[in-house]
């Protein structure tokens, strides 16, 4: 029992040392610019389970633990927005039992988020669920709305969970909304003009033409991701270098990293590497951003 106790003290001390070193490392990195927004594609859970001969579901559970610790690192470092690709609309194509398992897992974890020990309280998180929420089943949808409502007054940091999401769906939705809004905007002045006795024809057409222009800002206004700035870094685990229909619009000028590690294996050194490289290309990207704004 004495050895157990000393064993317990040893691991506590070791844990404390690791935390202290991590805080020191983050303080050093924070002398340079810190990305405001990091996005993750959490790929490789199933391959992780296969690699270690676990049952398939354990890969996703390990993935969730990895997510919690990665979020902790990001918020400790001072990142304000973190976006994760939890479930793609394309993933509905998988076997129905797998889809159900994933949805149940997400339901369980979503409810944990709000608990005493949960991330929300630890980091003062505001949580958004991004995507076509109408595709979710009733219980999941209800849980998602509950979490969004419960955290809407938190201001310290933001977590955006994309489920179920694809970028093309987001853009289609934004286009539809822009068309709808423009149509409503046009109808009012036209109707007013007609009521005031303006003749149809040239005057009305000119008014229509002026208002009917849809611009970049109109489309961006209606994007689901409009609640956050564009990501500064996109990290996809498991070594695949593709976007898989994630944040296509928002990553136009965003550095992309694809470490070979599977999602449950991703840890602090990959995050540090990504941030250091962000700092390396920061002056160039900032200059580009400033030039565009001044144009």
């Amino acid at each position, binding site marked *: 029992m004495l050895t157990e106790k000393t064993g317990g003290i040893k691991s506590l001390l070791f844990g404390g040392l690791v935390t202290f070193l991590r805080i020191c490392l983050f303080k050093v990195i924070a002398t340079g610019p810190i990305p405001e927004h990091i996005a993750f594609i959490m790929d490789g859970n*199933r391959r992780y389970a296969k690699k270690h001969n676990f049952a398939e579901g354990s890969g996703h559970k390990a993935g969730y633990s990895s997510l919690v610790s990665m979020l902790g690192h990001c918020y400790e470092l001072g990142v304000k927005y973190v976006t994760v690709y939890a479930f*793609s*609309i*394309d*993933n509905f*194509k*998988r*076997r129905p039992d*797998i889809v159900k398992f994933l949805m149940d897992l997400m339901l369980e974890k979503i409810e944990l988020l709000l608990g005493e020990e949960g991330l929300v309280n630890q980091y003062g998180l505001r949580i958004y669920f991004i995507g076509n929420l109408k595709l979710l089943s009733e219980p999941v949808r209800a849980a998602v709305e509950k979490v969004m409502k419960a955290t809407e007054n938190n201001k310290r940091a933001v977590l955006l969970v994309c489920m179920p999401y*694809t*970028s*093309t*769906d987001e*853009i*289609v939705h934004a*286009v*539809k909304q*822009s*068309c*709808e809004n*423009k*149509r409503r905007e*046009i109808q009012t002045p036209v109707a007013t003009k007609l009521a005031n006795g303006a003749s149809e024809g040239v005057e009305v057409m000119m008014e*229509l033409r002026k208002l*009917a*222009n*849809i*611009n*970049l800002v109109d*489309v961006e206004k209606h994007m689901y991701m409009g609640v956050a700035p564009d990501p500064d870094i996109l990290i996809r685990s498991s*070594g*695949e*270098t*593709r*976007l*898989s*229909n994630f944040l*296509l*619009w928002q*990553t*136009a*000028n*965003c*550095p*992309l*990293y*694809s*470490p*070979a590690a599977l999602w449950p294996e991703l840890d602090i050194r*990959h995050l540090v*590497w*990504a941030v250091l*490289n962000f700092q*390396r*290309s920061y002056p160039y990207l900032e200059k*580009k951003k400033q*030039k*565009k704004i001044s*144009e």
Partner: protein
Amino acid sequence: MLSLRLPIPSESVLASVMQRPPRFLNARNQTHLFCSPTLSEPKALQSSTPQATAADVVTREEEEELNDGTTPPEEELPEGLRRELMPKHVAVIMDGNGRWARQRGLPPGAGHRAGVESLKALVELCWRWEIRVLTVFAFSYDNWIRPKVEVEFLMSLFENVIQSELDKFAREGIRISVIGDWSRLPESLQALIRDAEEKTRKHSRLQLIVAVSYSGKYDVVQACKSIANKVKDGIVQVDDIDEGLIEQELETNCTEFPYPDLLIRTSGELRVSNFLLWQLAYTELFFAPDLWPDFGKDEFVEALVSFQERQRRYGGRK
């Protein structure tokens, strides 16, 4: 890569080829975390001539074996490539001309001219290996903020290249299309492009899409505008707007294969820079550390080998 059909190469050629370590074997497991400056600089600083010699030897040898007719026989692909896994549509961000010129103490114009040679070589390879569409990012909408001198130089370079290559395209069955916001291009260039597009419209062996004054976001917005106009005119209902409709309105509707299978970006930068955003949803990305004028046949083969090793799942399971 040396084909078995070649005569035994001379020592100098062998030496220059051996200088390059075989990187593509590790491409799949490579940590693409970053391309460190130390990794990419030495390679680029090696003068391009020895590598060009090796590539030239290979190209010339293969050309001699071709018939004189316009339709060459089916060409044997380099070792390691499988015909059934070749991409139909390859997109390239041709980055690094400026840096290439700076490293040699040359003006940026020299870098762009070297870049044109690289592009011509790539078009030739795609044509031979029966890739159906090649899209290249020649000039971004964001590049208009570059110095006026450089922009004017690039515009006249485009004009010269189109004029000099048009006959070759006509002979070899290459269709040229230009996407982007033409309105900002000089009048003479616009006329030349219209003419080139018209002359090559019926060609079908290879389609070369050149993105000039192009921005991925602008492409989506213009698609959105034309859909909005259709809604206004009652041709389309708001509820009918879906991904297929947007795809039809994007500028890549000029081709049968609007979505690239493989995107290559040279010079080691790891970003997409506002190129073909919608179309890249499921594209495999390959980031090459070489600067664009140094990107030749070997580097292209490396990218293709990496592409052929990937498992494309489109969100499903294997």
